[in-house]
């Protein structure tokens, strides 16, 4: 039954890819959405069956077919549903279905064949994403991993006639290749070390080892896997592709570049929690990179003027939070944040999509403003999403972000906790800057601004449905993991725990900080205290945004002028793209053009080939004189030859 979950969207892909031009656009959208909903139903049933199994160690394993069998090496295409993958498939199919439905309205300006092409890609993406999270070994996961990368490329470059879009697609693909290379090396090294690619077998083998105190094979394996995760999940230094990926259609940004694909890296670490737990050095690196990404991306998000780019940097920043959680060993908290983030970030993207759709493609915040009266549905749902991500108490983001920060603090990583807290302040500021600039105040009249339609249409029904469902999700999703301190029992993390169970045991054995027991016995008062701090930070951030961007916009301008240098650095995203261009792209270009092309290819390789040819022509020029065609010369040479050979044998 598990195989139905990825196969259904794949069937949708086949239908839309083969007959998309011939069926009406309504049929194309209906097929794509229907297969996603069907997949969601199957996923719900499968998750229900899973919950019915006895705990711990509940899992549904379904061998699909024997894939590779060569000598000692054999890999089966096996699907495995455990609590972790159950959460992932519900997120992918649930949010995926909503985004498919939303897309039927959002893409209505496309021609019929483009419309079908869009939905075929979207279905293909869902199929690969489900393979990724359901695979029970690295090879099956790798198929999904590469597949979602391909679909990301196709969808980022969906409007391929726009040069920036096709460039962004290529950038996303190439940067991901760097990460994938690390991933593949990590998988190969894991196979060399443990002679298996199965996640369960790997976890068992690794748990028999003691955690590495110095940098060893396990640290190298996990570090290489983390390179892959950093590529897919846009962590420093491979984060540069995600903001550019906003060239794709907005629902794609919501599905692929916010809710699902970019979280694959987090999932990868969660899936291999045991391996990572045995490599504390890697975990430290993961946490450091995560928190650095969270902070730097949030600071960039403060000054961007493109509505989708702000959200993109916000995504990078939130992914940083998830990696922070993974890095401090709070795997369940990281996945919890992944799950709530999927709701509110998809909501925010779809809300921004509703705005862009209403404004006929306008994305610049400076030309928006005052939209709350004209777009009440988009406004109210967007506000819910913004409050959720900012960490307003009671909404989804509050619980998950707080859980991450609490686990960080309880693990003794005070510095990481402070940075996380600062990031959370910045999150509230940039998110409400977005809200105030887009929906409040007056319409910005930039010189040369396109004239928007005088009457704006709010989200059409299909879009409104997705927005409202996601807004409800953003409100209630967090209660699945209501922490103990607030009278809950943190059911979400209890549910996930078996997926990391070996890791928890070894963590205890290794005496690592951030121990689960410790976290559980940590006083509820500490958690409540930290929550109060977070709440203050969130409210403070919103207040600051209110002051600077709504009450007193001139103060914001003053700040920009006072810190002009800093502002320029942030607006240019720390010049990372420029640095990469100067240190990587240009050297490669120069070496390729002048060294490999003009040097090696033209001179050495072509030169050798041409030299061989010219030698043949030149020596033939000499030899052809022998073939004068004269009968007498031929006869004379024949005679001379006979005389010489006979003479040699007679007088030797």
């Amino acid at each position: 039954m598990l195989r139905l979950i990825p196969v259904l969207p794949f069937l949708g892909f086949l239908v839309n890819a083969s007959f998309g031009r011939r069926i009406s656009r309504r049929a194309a959208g209906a097929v794509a959405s229907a297969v996603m909903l069907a997949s969601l139903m199957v996923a719900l049933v499968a998750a229900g069956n899973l919950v019915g199994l006895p705990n711990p160690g509940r899992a549904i394993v379904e061998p699909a077919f024997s894939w590779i069998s060569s000598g000692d090496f054999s890999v089966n295409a096996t699907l495995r549903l455990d609590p972790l993958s159950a959460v992932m498939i519900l997120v992918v199919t649930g949010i995926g279905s909503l985004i498919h439905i939303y897309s039927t309205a959002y893409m209505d300006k496309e021609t019929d064949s483009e419309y079908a092409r869009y939905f075929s890609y979207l279905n293909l993406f869902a199929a690969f994403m489900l393979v990724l999270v359901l695979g029970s070994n690295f090879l099956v996961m790798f198929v999904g991993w590469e597949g979602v990368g391909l679909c990301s490329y196709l969808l980022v470059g969906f409007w391929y006639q726009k040069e920036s879009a096709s460039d962004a697609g290529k950038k996303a693909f190439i940067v991901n290749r760097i990460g994938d290379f690390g991933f593949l090396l990590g998988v190969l090294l894991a196979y060399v070390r443990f002679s298996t690619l199965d996640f369960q077998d790997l976890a068992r083998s690794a748990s028999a080892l003691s955690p590495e105190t110095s940098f060893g094979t396990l640290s190298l394996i996990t570090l290489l896997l983390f390179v892959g995760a950093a590529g897919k999940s846009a962590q420093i230094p491979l984060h540069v592709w995600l903001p550019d990926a906003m060239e794709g259609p907005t629902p794609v940004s919501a599905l692929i570049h916010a809710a699902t694909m970019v979280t694959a890296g987090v999932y990868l670490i969660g899936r291999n929690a045991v391996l990572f737990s045995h490599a504390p050095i890697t975990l430290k690196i993961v946490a450091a990179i995560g928190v650095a990404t969270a902070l730097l991306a949030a600071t960039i998000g403060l000054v961007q003027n493109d509505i989708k780019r702000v959200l993109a940097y916000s995504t990078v920043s939130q992914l940083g939070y998830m990696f922070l959680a993974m890095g401090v060993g709070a795997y369940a908290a990281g996945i919890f944040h992944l799950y709530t983030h999927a709701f509110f970030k998809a909501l925010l993207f779809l809300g921004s999509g509703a705005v862009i759709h209403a404004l006929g493609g306008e994305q610049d915040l400076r030309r928006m403003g005052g939209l709350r009266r004209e777009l009440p549905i988009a406004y109210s749902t967007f506000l819910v999403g913004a409050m959720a991500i900012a960490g307003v108490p009671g909404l989804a983001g509050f619980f998950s972000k707080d859980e991450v920060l609490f686990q960080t603090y309880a693990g003794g990583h005070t510095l990481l906790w402070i940075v996380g807290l600062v990031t959370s302040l910045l999150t509230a500021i940039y998110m409400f800057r977005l809200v105030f600039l887009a929906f409040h105040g007056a319409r910005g009249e930039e010189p040369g601004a396109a004239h928007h339609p005088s009457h704006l249409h709010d989200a059409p029904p299909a879009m409104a449905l997705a927005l409202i469902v996601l807004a409800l999700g953003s409100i209630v999703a967090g209660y699945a993991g209501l922490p103990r301190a607030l009278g809950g029992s943190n059911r979400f993390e209890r549910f996930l725990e078996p997926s990391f169970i070996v890791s928890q045991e070894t963590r205890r054995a290794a005496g690592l900080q951030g121990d689960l027991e410790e976290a559980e016995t940590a006083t509820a008062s500490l958690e409540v205290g930290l929550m109060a701090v977070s709440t203050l930070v969130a409210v403070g951030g919103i207040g600051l945004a209110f002051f600077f961007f709504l009450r007193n916009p001139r103060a914001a301008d003053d700040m920009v002028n006072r810190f002009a240098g800093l502002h320029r650095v942030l607006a240019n995203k720390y010049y990372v793209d420029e640095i990469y261009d100067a240190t990587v792209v240009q050297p490669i270009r120069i070496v390729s053009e002048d060294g490999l092309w003009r040097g090696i290819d033209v001179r050495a390789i072509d030169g050798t080939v041409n030299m061989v040819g010219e030698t043949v022509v030149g020596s033939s020029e000499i030899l052809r004189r022998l073939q004068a065609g004269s009968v007498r010369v031929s006869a004379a040479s024949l005679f001379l030859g006979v005389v010489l050979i006979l003479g040699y044998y007679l007088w030797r």
Partner: protein
Amino acid sequence: MPTLNQYLVLSATLFAIGTAGVFIRRNLITILLSIEIMLNAVNLTFVAFGRALGAVDGQILVFFVITVAAAEAAVGLAIVIGLFRHSESLNPDSFASLKW
């Protein structure tokens, strides 16, 4: 009575004359005649050895050579006539179409 050596010297001289004729003369018919001289030089060697050794093998071989020479003359002259019809010339240097 001439000795074997004298026969062989005569034979070698005739062969050299024939060879020179083949390479030097510029008339196909003369070249054919020169080939005949070379063949007869060889025939002379055969019969000289036959006589010196008191065996008939050499003489028998000479009959074969004479037969082949007759056939060769017939075929050779036919080719010469064909070539002459083709290019109105008997100079071997005018037949250089083997060259690429």
